């Protein structure tokens, strides 16, 4: 069965430090992969997406993610976090045989300290 795993429930990072959020998926074919961010009281905002082509994807707010087929991973990175990056981050998978259904991971809560 298809699944999305975010191993880290909670990450604390200092402002200015680098950030990496992990995402692993289980799916028979190449999935479509997404990272969303949710700030308190806000909806889910798309940071970036991978469909095909270059496995290093650039997104908004200085985020990037790398698709590694051999590891079934799509990890999100940011070289230098800002206090405004404190939020919950969700990895999601879309299927090629679906009418748009996204399957989400459990989310990673990011706390940024001064």
């Amino acid at each position, binding site marked *: 069965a298809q699944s999305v795993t975010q191993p880290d429930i909670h990450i604390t990072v200092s402002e200015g430090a680098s950030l990496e959020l992990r995402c692993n998926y289980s799916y028979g074919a190449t999935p479509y992969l997404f990272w969303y961010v949710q700030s308190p009281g806000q909806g*889910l*905002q798309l940071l970036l997406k991978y469909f095909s082509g270059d496995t290093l994807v650039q997104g908004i707010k200085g985020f990037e993610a790398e698709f590694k087929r051999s590891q079934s991973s799509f990890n999100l990175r940011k070289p230098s976090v800002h206090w405004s990056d404190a939020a919950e981050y969700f990895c999601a998978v879309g299927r090629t045989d679906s*009418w*748009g259904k996204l399957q989400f991971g459990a989310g990673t809560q990011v706390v940024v300290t001064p």
Partner: protein
Amino acid sequence: EPEVTQTPSHQVTQMGQEVILRCVPISNHLYFYWYRQILGQKVEFLVSFYNNEISEKSEIFDDQFSVERPDGSNFTLKIRSTKLEDSAMYFCASSTGLAVIGSEQFFGPGTRLTVL
């Protein structure tokens, strides 16, 4: 910038009552979705809707649930007889096309449903 809006932001209801959650998708979007997130759990897909009919639904979306696009702007989720386990944050989303062709789903801020 266009956005998906949802009303109300918080709904409290008694078990067994009917609730209608409302969404206004982005105006030129053609595909509409409902997701929910029970506190502490994953965001789960409920249903997708296109061309005035359900295109896909999950196991969660049983006979107690229905969706409707009553006019050109609103998209509603109705729960006929709420249960305690329906308490969750419900997200509406919309897109111009399917994810398979690269379309992004835009999410609303959610409606928190509390069933007492």
